């Protein structure tokens, strides 16, 4: 009899082959996605490169030498305007680089301040440290860059020390190579300037709150939209279609309901984040409201399109799990997009998780004005409209045949 229990279970799995396939395919799909996110390419062990802007306010041979050496590091990718067509640039003033970091174009900028070379050589009057302008949403990148600057500057200083020793001692200075000379030098001064996080409590939490909220917004919307399939199964939809309601009004009502519930869901999530983790919701209400409404609207449209495309609730659940988890992984709901390679970041922009999270980041992290949300709002509104129209088109199968 135990054998028959197993046999019945296997037979039922076999009769639901799509679900069975998903049981095997979903883990492989997610392994592959995460391998791409964290590995660059599977098996090659490549680390993502840190994007950085270089600023040479000092304009000396020594500062150029330092920045050239940094640009030569495999771990760093120096900012190049117009998508890299013009090649990497070194700014001569801090303003543009600071703006890039503020707008989210780059996480970091290295600033060699005026007078740094003199200070570095010990001939200047004031101590002048290298500055890192940091968007501390990516704390690992800041640490990596600091270590690289110390290493490169240390090598330069050691070389200078060796040259000084050689100048003083002549041929007898031979035992003092750069490495030995480095032992006589002091560490390079680096000042990390958090240009976004100043005065903010738990700023990274807002990003995670948004990421999780958007992912569960999608799950919630799909769950709600599945009521269409339940109504079809119970013939309630048949009855509704025989009434004065009509499919367009039915879908409009469902969309409105899902959007209202979605907005409430995200608001409660952020209210909790404010109460417990100090995320400043009340201080960013207009931006939050705009992003939440458009994101919930787009999620509702996607959910309705999926429900209209699927034949059964089980099919909808299976498709939704694959799609939502994939979108969440690529779009930054599970892991921040800044740890992904450039290619994966671009792929992520095909998901509306990425656009939603970029919008929330602009609101909570960068504190940008409402007009800065225009690209995200435009994309999400367009997605909401297109997907809702698609849902309406697909729902024709429930109308007169």
């Amino acid at each position, binding site marked *: 009899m135990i054998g028959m229990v197993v046999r019945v279970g296997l037979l039922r799995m076999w009769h639901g082959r799509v679900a069975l396939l998903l049981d095997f395919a979903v883990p492989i799909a997610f392994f592959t996605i995460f391998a791409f996110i964290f590995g660059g390419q599977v098996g090659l062990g490549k680390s993502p490169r840190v994007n950085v802007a270089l600023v040479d306010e000092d304009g000396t041979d020594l500062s150029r030498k330092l920045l050239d050496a940094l640009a030569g590091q495999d771990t760093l990718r120096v900012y190049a305007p117009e998508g890299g067509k013009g090649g990497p640039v070194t700014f001569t003033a801090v303003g543009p680089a600071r703006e890039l970091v503020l707008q989210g174009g780059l996480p970091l900028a290295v600033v060699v301040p005026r007078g740094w070379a003199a200070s570095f050589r010990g001939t200047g009057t004031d101590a002048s440290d290298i500055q890192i302008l940091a968007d501390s949403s990516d704390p690992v990148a800041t640490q990596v860059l600091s270590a690289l600057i110390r290493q490169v500057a240390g090598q330069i200083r050691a070389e200078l020390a060796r040259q000084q020793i050689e100048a003083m001692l002549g041929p007898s200075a031979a035992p003092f190579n750069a490495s030995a000379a480095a032992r006589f030098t002091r560490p390079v001064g680096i000042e990390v300037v958090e240009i976004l996080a100043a005065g903010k409590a738990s700023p990274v939490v807002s990003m995670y709150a948004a990421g999780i909220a958007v992912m569960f917004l999608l799950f919630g919307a799909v769950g709600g939209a599945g009521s269409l399939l339940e109504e079809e199964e*119970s013939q309630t939809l048949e*009855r*509704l*279609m025989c*009434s*004065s309601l*009509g499919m367009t009004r039915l879908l409009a009502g469902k969309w409105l309901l899902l959007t209202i519930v979605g907005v409430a869901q995200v608001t409660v999530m952020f209210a909790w984040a404010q109460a417990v983790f100090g995320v400043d919701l009340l201080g960013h209400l207009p931006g939050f409201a705009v992003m939440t409404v458009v994101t919930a609207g787009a999620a509702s449209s996607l959910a309705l399109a999926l429900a209209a495309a699927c034949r059964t609730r089980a099919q909808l659940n299976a498709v939704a799990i694959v799609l939502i988890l994939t979108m969440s992984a690529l779009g930054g709901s599970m892991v921040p997009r800044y740890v992904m390679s450039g290619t994966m970041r671009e792929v992520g922009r095909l998901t509306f998780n990425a656009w939603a999270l970029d919008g929330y980041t602009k609101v909570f992290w960068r504190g940008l004005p409402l007009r800065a949300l225009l690209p995200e709002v435009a994309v999400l509104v367009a997605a909401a409209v297109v997907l809702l129209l698609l849902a309406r088109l697909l729902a024709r199968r429930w*109308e007169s045949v």
Partner: protein
Amino acid sequence: MSESAITDKDPALRVRDVAKRFGSVVALDRASLELRRGERLALLGPNGAGKTTLVRCICGRVAPDAGEIEMLGERLPPAGGRQRLGFVPQEIALYPDLTARENLEAFGRFHGLRGPELRQAVEWALGWTGLSSRARELTKTFSGGMKRRVNIACGVLHRPLVLLLDEPTVGVDPQSRERIFAMLDELRRHGTSILLTTHQLDEAEQRCDRIVIIDHGRVIVAGTLSELIEATVGPKRRVTLRLAAPGPRPEGFRAGAGPLELVAEVGDVALELPVLLERAREAGGEVSDVDVRAPSLQAVFIHLTGRELRE
């Protein structure tokens, strides 16, 4: 549809030569029927005969390939324009996690009622179904019969002139069936014409004014029960005699189902039955039991559609 356009001469519903094909399957093959004013009409047919497709055509849920459907003298469009039509599906098409009142309010609104009109309709429906005291309970907690009553009520809140019911009493106990037909009687008294599909032949026989039988997508017969009997199996009663012991077969009888059974058909029971009994006695047979049966709808149905399973 304008009130002035309606005349008493027009039937409540007229279906003319409606055809519908799904791929290679012919669901309706020039089906025609008429539902008269204030009438209760039973639509019978084996599974797959085309009943549901015909009802869905009338509801506007299936667009016919050919033919036309008129309600109260006006031709209906393929979809929409059916505000005076009510439909009650076979399944319990309610929201199980809403109360009876909430369900009624929702479907009343979907049928275009609002404000005081909606409130009055809901109160009427709760009284009509006998569920006023259970109005605040979730329908998922109701018995099968109670759910059926709410299911029907949700289809008539807007007081339709024509009501279509797809197997309204399937799966309910006799008491609930009685209640449901009492409800339908009340509707009919107020002028609603009713078309119902059913597999319960006794319901069609006893509770409906006329009967339509559909098979292979065509309406094969329509009329009162006596008209159908006259047109098919004939009006004669079937007399079955059971003998105490095997004996010779008297004149006028044929062999029955068992070795002790004799069968004959009679037109006038009072005149012909004594003669048959006398013949059996004269032939030396001892009659232990006599069964006289009038021709039934079951006999008509089997006569017209055969005994072959359809699915």
